[in-house]
């Protein structure tokens, strides 16, 4: 523990009280508690605190669970690129291409979001709130690959300020911050995010490679919305070797993340499971009773669950402990309705090829109401028992 002893004795005092760098106290504190287990546990502020672990440790588990998606996303970006230009490349070259395309997005998202968080923490004289550790990783994973960096920066700043800080910071937000970022992108820059076509080769990478001029490929949901037959087969929607947003294509990578989240007890299996059940039920209903000429309604239900952001949303977004329902029964209702609404939007509204984002944001609104109803019905039940 030589390093820790050195930091504790030499470096830490400089950031505390009247130390040389006390202006950067929040910055130091943020990194210190991220790298080492802090002595204090989180205070009971915010709805996501439910045991004595520091919330940075919870957030770290989610970031670890996201790594398979991130790595696979990088590989897929490279794969789609070489596929589009008709070349074959070995594994390493493919991955490195993706790394070069994805890494700047991760860096921009973290730099902007953490920059705002640090500034506000320093300004208010508080400890840094750790919520952005996860949001900063989620944001690059749910944007299309050709999304320019400045747009990601604007959207991240908007979401951190207006979806989180104005509500009181981590644990107080009503809406999932990463999804607000995506919603901002979706409504502000629809040409980037339309979902009909996701560009598999970013133009700004051409200065590195000097190859094609941005090939666009349709995602399965885009084809559905346009009423065309889906060209991606079921197997590639599971493995994830298809065009789409960076982190959301591979069901296998998401499943690994889901196992990590469930094993560590960070996410609730009830929410996760009921999202899939809700989606499957509605998709089955559409399969059985839907209009014959509506391609999205006739799209097989198991494929509905594997394309687009359905899995990613179910595993990483719907289970967000802050914005989802807190009561155990409430989690079933919350998840089920997310699944239902997501498929309903996909099938019935061709203007929105992907409904997962809107479904989760909508249910975020209703999560407190669901909790309230569950608690009230429980109170009523017990009151009756006393009377009887």
């Amino acid at each position, binding site marked *: 523990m030589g390093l820790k002893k050195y930091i504790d004795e030499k470096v830490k005092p400089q950031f505390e009280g009247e130390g040389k760098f006390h202006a950067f106290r929040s910055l130091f504190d943020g990194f210190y508690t991220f790298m080492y287990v802090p002595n204090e546990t989180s205070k009971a502020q915010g709805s996501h605190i439910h045991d004595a672990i520091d919330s940075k440790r919870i957030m770290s588990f989610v970031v670890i669970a996201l790594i398979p998606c991130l790595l696979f996303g990088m590989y897929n970006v490279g794969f789609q690129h070489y596929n589009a230009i008709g070349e074959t490349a070995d594994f390493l070259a493919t991955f490195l291409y993706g790394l070069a395309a994805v890494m700047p997005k991760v860096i921009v998202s973290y730099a902007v979001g953490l920059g705002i968080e640090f500034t506000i923490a320093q300004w208010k004289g508080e400890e840094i709130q750790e919520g952005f550790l996860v949001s900063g990783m989620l944001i690059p994973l749910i944007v299309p690959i050709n999304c*320019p960096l400045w747009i990601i920066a604007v959207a991240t700043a908007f979401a951190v300020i207006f979806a989180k800080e104005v509500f009181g910071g981590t644990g107080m937000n009503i809406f999932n911050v990463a999804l607000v970022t995506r919603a*901002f992108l979706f*409504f*502000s820059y629809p040409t980037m995010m339309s979902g009909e076509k996701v560009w598999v080769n970013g133009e700004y990478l051409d200065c590195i490679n000097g190859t094609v001029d941005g090939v666009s490929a349709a995602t399965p949901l885009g084809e559905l919305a346009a009423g065309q037959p889906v060209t991606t087969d079921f197997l590639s929607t599971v493995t994830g070797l298809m065009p789409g947003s960076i982190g959301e294509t591979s069901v296998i990578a998401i499943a690994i993340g889901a196992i990590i989240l469930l094993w560590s007890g960070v996410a609730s299996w009830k929410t996760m499971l009921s999202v899939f059940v809700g989606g499957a039920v509605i998709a089955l209903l559409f399969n059985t009773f839907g209009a014959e000429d509506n391609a999205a309604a006739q799209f097989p239900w198991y494929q509905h669950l594997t394309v687009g952001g359905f899995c990613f949303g179910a595993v990483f977004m719907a289970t967000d402990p802050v914005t989802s329902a807190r009561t155990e029964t409430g989690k079933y209702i919350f998840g089920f309705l997310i699944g239902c609404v997501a498929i309903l939007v996909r099938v019935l509204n061709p203007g929105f090829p992907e409904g997962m984002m809107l479904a989760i944001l909508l249910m975020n609104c209703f999560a407190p109401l669901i909790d309230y109803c569950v608690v009230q019905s429980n109170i009523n039940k017990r009151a009756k028992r006393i009377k009887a």
Partner: protein
Amino acid sequence: MSLFSKENGAVFTGPLNLNNPIAVQVLGICSALAVTSQLKPAIVMGLSVTVITAFSNVIISLIRKTIPNRIRIIVQLVVVAALVTIVSNILKAYVYDVSVQLSVYVGLIITNCILMGRLEAFALQNGPWESFLDGIANGLGYAIILVIVGFVRELLGSGTLFGLTIIPSSVLMENGGLYLHNGMMTMPAMALIILACVIWAHRSINKEK
């Protein structure tokens, strides 16, 4: 009492800043969201409301002693409706394109809470000259906020001001640049957020007052 006494000065400057109808009283939000996607309609709307508030204030103030208390709201509505009809027809005659853009919102000035609020709270108790100043000031206070919101929305939403291109088209993405207009700025949802920012800034500046 002289025309430009200190009290009258306070009547005039209050609504422009510390007692702003939108930023402090949070009235008239609906039309402020609806007409501010561009600067020109925002200014025309602000001026229309100013004129209508000022003259309805004067008329109600002149007849305030003869209005039976129980039917005063109806009398106020008749006066406002008459003025709105006049303004609406003037807009149609001279700035037809703007009046088309404003569509129903000129007619809906009748229901603007700033107007009824000023009539009830000020014109019924004060003389015509004070009421005139109060109407002008409240209308201008409303117009200032509309212009600020309209400026931000038109500049970021479509890159123009008064319809003139400010952000050159060469930086746009379809022409090989990197810039994209923010489509959400043209939606009322973003107007609400900009309005909130204006109110936020206004209140942090005037915190101690």
